[in-house]
């Protein structure tokens, strides 16, 4: 019997026991819906978390320090000086030349007095690289970002702006004076002097929070300068005192370089290369690994719970088809007498199971989608009440739709194995004997 006839007969048989088959098909639909709902939620949550984490810029960033650095003293106590190169301009250029590196910026952070109108505040200023503009915190900047890496412009943190004006937005376009300590080179390389300087900046934007700029999360800066501007100011850095007492003074070294990658995918390679250059490197990649593992486990559990409903539905398929075999005993006998082979009979029951799986799967994907939209809507109503922006926690990728329908058909056909075998084994003489 060819496939078209098989499915025609299967469809006819299913129409003859419409209620029973419809109920079983709905059972499959509910099973698939729960699977789709669970997995979409898992995928959506994962996507959401990835998005948030990637947007933070954390995983696109590698922090490089010299092994001579005070922070690495303990672990590199045995390191020989020739194996611990200084983190100087040459090193910066080398790192910048690595594939995937977008920008290498020194960490610049300094205490300063900030004057705005007649108000003065003592606070931290920090450099903010141009590449940080894609980060989540910076993306939502009020006003605009720096026009260039060496512009005399600043971004200020919103809470700080509130100290300056009752309406924080009013500071935009105004002038702000930063009083800072400038390090000036001394007569020889073994000394430098410090001088008080002042510089005027235009406030171009407001930040809700400090972007992810470095490892010292405690020392949150309030005023941000473009990196090149900040570097040109020769802000006195705490590491400068450390540098002057080291054995090879003179050349400019950095306490830390923040290396930004074009995407997180480069981070691992760059970190490796930097380590080969004998610098200390650190990134948050390890953190992502465990987060990914967490989501893999979460997806698995959601998938298992979703599959449970489908497992129950498969029992309904077995039940329905076993009933059909009993009920259609005579019909199967007739078919065999008319020349249907055991394989034909078997295939017919598989076709019926597959049809239920296909229809149930398709309905289930639709139902799952509706459930998902409902969860999403509910979440966003809640988020809205909490005055938080709406989020899409719900993702139904195409592979999930196709996979879910395919899985439903597969489960249905597996459930059909026993009833189909039973139908095929039926003895036509016995089946035709009873009236």
């Amino acid at each position, binding site marked *: 019997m060819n496939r078209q*006839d098989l499915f025609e007969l299967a469809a006819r048989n299913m129409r*003859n026991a419409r209620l029973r088959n419809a109920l079983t098909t709905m059972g499959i639909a509910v099973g698939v819906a729960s699977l789709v709902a669970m997995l979409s939620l898992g995928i959506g949550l994962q996507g959401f978390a990835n998005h948030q984490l990637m947007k933070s810029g954390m995983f696109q960033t590698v922090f490089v320090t010299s092994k001579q650095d005070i922070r690495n003293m303990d672990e590199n106590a045995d390191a020989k000086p020739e194996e611990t190169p200084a983190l100087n301009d040459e090193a910066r250029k080398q790192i910048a030349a690595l594939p995937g590196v977008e920008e290498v910026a020194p960490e610049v952070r300094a205490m300063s007095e900030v004057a705005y109108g007649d108000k003065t505040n003592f606070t931290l200023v920090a450099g903010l690289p141009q590449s940080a503009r894609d980060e989540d915190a910076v993306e939502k900047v009020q006003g605009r970002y720096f026009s260039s890496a060496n512009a005399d412009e600043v971004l200020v943190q919103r809470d700080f702006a509130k100290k300056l004006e009752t309406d924080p937005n009013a500071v935009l376009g105004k002038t702000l004076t930063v009083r800072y300590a400038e390090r000036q080179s001394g007569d020889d390389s073994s000394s430098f002097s410090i001088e008080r300087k002042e510089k005027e900046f235009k406030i171009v934007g407001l930040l809700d929070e400090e972007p992810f700029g470095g490892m010292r999360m405690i020392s949150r800066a309030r005023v941000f300068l473009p990196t090149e501007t900040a570097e040109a100011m020769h802000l006195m850095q705490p590491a400068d005192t450390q540098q002057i007492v080291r054995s090879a003074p003179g050349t400019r070294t950095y306490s830390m370089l923040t290396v930004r990658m074009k995407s997180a995918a480069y981070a691992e390679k760059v970190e490796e290369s930097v380590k080969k250059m004998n610098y200390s490197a650190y990134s948050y990649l390890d953190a992502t690994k465990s987060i990914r593992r967490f989501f893999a486990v979460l997806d698995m559990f959601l998938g298992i719970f979703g599959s449970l409903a489908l497992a129950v539905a498969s029992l309904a398929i077995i039940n329905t088809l076993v009933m059909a075999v009993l009920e259609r005993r005579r*019909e199967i006998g007739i078919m065999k*007498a008319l*020349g249907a082979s055991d394989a034909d009979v078997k295939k017919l029951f598989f076709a019926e199971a597959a049809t239920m799986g296909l229809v149930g799967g398709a309905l289930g994907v639709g139902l799952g989608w509706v459930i998902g939209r409902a969860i999403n809507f509910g979440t966003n109503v809640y988020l809205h009440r909490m005055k938080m922006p709406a989020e899409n926690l719900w993702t139904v990728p195409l592979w999930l739709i196709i996979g879910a329908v395919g899985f439903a058909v597969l489960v249905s056909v597996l459930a059909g194995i026993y009833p189909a075998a039973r139908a095929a084994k039926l003895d036509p003489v016995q089946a035709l004997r009873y009236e």
Partner: protein
Amino acid sequence: MSEETGAVAIAARGASRYYTMGDTTVRAVEDVSFDIERGEFAALLGPSGSGKSTLLNLLAGLDRLSAGSIVVAGKDLSTMDSEALARYRRLTVGMIFQSFNLVPTMTLADNIELPLRFAETPRGERRDRVLELLTNVGMAHRANHKPSELSGGEQQRGAIARSLANRPSVLLADEPTGNLDSHNGQEVMMLLRELNEKMGVTVLMVTHDPALAERYARKSLHMADGKLVSTVEALR
């Protein structure tokens, strides 16, 4: 049938069918041998329990021989696997039952199309073939009726049309008039005779009615207790 040899349509040699029921062996058919020629109209007679239905099932390829051999249209049933037997039932023999055995949920036309589906007859040819078969038995006007909407005689005529769908060379009928009144029974018998005479189909009919056999069959096989007790050839 290319393999058909000589004039013999059905040849049984020591055909036996035993069942085991607990400790006892039931010899439903034992050592039955006979020949039925091509184009013959034969009757298989005997009281109930004599083994005639079992023998018919063996001839139809629905049941397997315990011993002996049966050759129908040159095909030895004793050597066939279940797939080959299905093909044999599909193409070589047609079956008619006392209780008609039309699929109750299908229309008459759908019932007749069923063996054509199994034989994978092209879709385009099927409709014409079904109509032709129904016309041959005078049932074309009932094509789209369900069996429950038809009289017994009409159902049996439909069943005969279905049995001929794949142009079998042998027609096996199990008490074809058993569930019919005498008028309808006679019509069905006339139809079988017509098919036998016009199309040359070999007919073997199981009946317990000697009068029916005498009237229509040229050869009568009498069974009792699973054995063939006599063969009567009518002089005509």
